[in-house]
């Protein structure tokens, strides 16, 4: 199957190792992966912050870029949620019926990484080896917008050598919330401190997740407090086959 990547802006620039890991996993499963350099950003930050006029050109760009793509894979739930939940509304508000049609046509082909593997490709064992104790943070968008359920956990349970430990209060937001983290820094930090407490309590070596946005926040807190717990995106764990300490590079806290 030809799979087109959508590597969200912040993953492109800040977390290149995640995109590389997605490529590794999908190619290992025998698929052909393509990256369309015209892609930039889904527009979520602008849309969720109220800058809808600025989000619209990014929606147009996404639609133009992926118009003919068969399957689009994005290793970020919140971007997929933006596309699936808010693109129809943003397109409607634009007053451009052709754009609405294009959005309707493309959104059904966009998959979050774990959705693609479990639902579309029907695999849970991707042949990974990762001999570490891992806990998993499900992002709010994965939980309540995409309803990914236990798909990421199914994937992790199939990883050889990996010990999965349950994260207490798993449905609690980590306090990132995009611009929320800088507009309400004190509340965001208070939320983060509860999340960190829960993660440290699990005694896991690694906190994984399907959204580098949450992991950026959680990892930033784990690092600041010198907890020694690392954050690693789900794709990087699934890409790992060797004994390297965290699979891919980076994500160190």
């Amino acid at each position, binding site marked *: 199957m030809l799979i087109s990547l959508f590597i969200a802006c912040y993953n492109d620039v800040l977390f290149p190792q995640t995109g590389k890991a997605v490529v590794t996993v999908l190619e290992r499963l025998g698929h052909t992966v393509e990256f369309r350099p015209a892609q930039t950003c889904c527009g979520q930050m602008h*849309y969720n912050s109220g800058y809808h006029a*600025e989000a619209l050109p990014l929606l147009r760009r996404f639609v133009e870029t992926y118009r003919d793509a068969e399957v689009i894979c994005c290793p970020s739930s919140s971007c997929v949620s933006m596309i699936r939940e808010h693109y129809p509304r943003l397109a409607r508000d634009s007053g451009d019926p052709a754009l609405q049609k294009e959005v309707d046509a493309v959104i059904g082909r966009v998959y979050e990484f774990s959705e693609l593997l479990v639902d579309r490709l029907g695999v849970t064992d991707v042949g990974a080896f990762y001999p570490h104790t891992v806990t998993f943070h499900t992002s709010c968008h994965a939980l309540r917008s995409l309803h990914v359920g236990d798909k990421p956990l199914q994937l992790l349970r199939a990883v050889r050598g990996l010990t999965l430990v349950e994260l207490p209060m798993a449905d609690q937001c980590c306090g990132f919330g995009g611009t929320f983290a800088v507009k309400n820094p004190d509340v965001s930090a208070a939320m983060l401190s509860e999340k960190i407490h829960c993660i440290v309590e699990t005694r896991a070596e690694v906190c994984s997740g399907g959204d580098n946005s949450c992991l950026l926040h959680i990892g930033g807190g784990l690092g600041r407090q010198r907890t020694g717990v690392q954050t690693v995106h789900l794709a990087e764990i699934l890409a790992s086959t060797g004994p390297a300490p965290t699979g891919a590079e980076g994500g160190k806290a």
Partner: protein
Amino acid sequence: MSVRVGHAAQAPEFPIAAKELVANSQLRRNVRRATDVIQAKRARVVGERPDWQQLRESARQIKQHTLENLDHYLERFEEACTRAGGKVHWARDADEANRIIVGLVQGYGEDEVIKVKTMTSDEICLNPALEAAGITPYETDLADLIVQLGEDRPSHIVVPALHRNRLEIREIFMRKMGLENLGFEPTDLTTAARQYLREKFLRVKVGISGANFAVAETGSICVVESEGNGRMCLSLPRVLISLIGIEKIVPTFQDLEVFLQLLPRSATGERMNPYNSIWTGVTPGDGPEEFHVVLLDNGRTSVLADADTRQTLACIRCGACLNTCPVYRQTGGHAYGSVYGGPIGAILTPQLQSMEHSRSLPYASSLCGACYEVCPVKINIPEVLIQLRARVVREGHSPFSERMAMKGAAFALGDEGRLSLAHALARIAQVPFRHGDHLGGLPGMLGHWTEFRDLPAVPQESFRQWWEKRGKDGPQ
């Protein structure tokens, strides 16, 4: 017009108020403990109902239909209530409602009132208006009494004194009731409140209540509560005045069947409220002899005018969104600067009050969606928050620096060339802030990030650069 939501116009912006509250460890303990308990109870009794989702959907539809035909149902309510011996007054705003109520109490020659279950009266600042006219209001709901005696403000729409623990309440009671001794147990505190209130129930001639629902078909009013103080307040005085926001209307008596299943489970985690009072007009020889309803607009019709956000008015004030909200959990209700706190307050206050005064409230959420999940009438709070944020930006209330940053980001993300250039610039700009593999002490808005968290340094090579190189060398 003088639309007002408590003291919201003078309140500090959410992040500023929150900064102080987050530092109050006693308050945070109290709020966390209380919301944990209520949430667990709610989850248990909601889980018992296999038809919970259908109930929510029914409630949503009833509310939507009512709001879309509110003029019709309000007039039907007025007819039915008048027929049953009630008098209906219409108040455009807070000042008008206060004038009506003060006028009624003075007209009966009274200088005291007992009050129960009327958050709407806090919205219009009724107590100060009564006091200015020489009328003493006594709150009779236990939590409202604690707030009143503590010269405090409510911090939750169902449990207004949730931010206080038992020791703090004991201290307030001893001071304000003039008690030299008081035990520490809940029963000691409730006994003290009971003695304080009983005498007032028997003496005061005018009661003021709110309403959970007002039935258009029959003109009935419904108030649910746990203590029985409400029942006394509704039945013992000679005169009863009910202050009701116009959105509290439901079309038929049978509609209560849906809401009386949803509300107690969502609000207090009970299958049914201990006291459900429903009355229609006046009944000679039974209960109040005179009954007045004050129907309050105070900005509600302007909320109704916006199809995007009018679902806000479907709220039945259960407080489930507050209890589940991770933001409310850290700050309690006072940070929202309004009688309506939590997620529902963050969307209601800015719509009632002007956006200029409440521009920080639509941003007082991480958009985690937990509120929408628990809302018994399915108000899509995150969606309304986003629409209100768009209004803040559209009306020019967003900070200048933020507007510039957003425009800059939109430009940089406009095409792949600009994005690559931004990446290159970020790599250079980060040098002075770099500590090994992470950044610290960043300036401007990013400083709010690095105040509490590390930020990874921007790697040398972006994904797209790697991909391009890989294309040249072929997949490894």
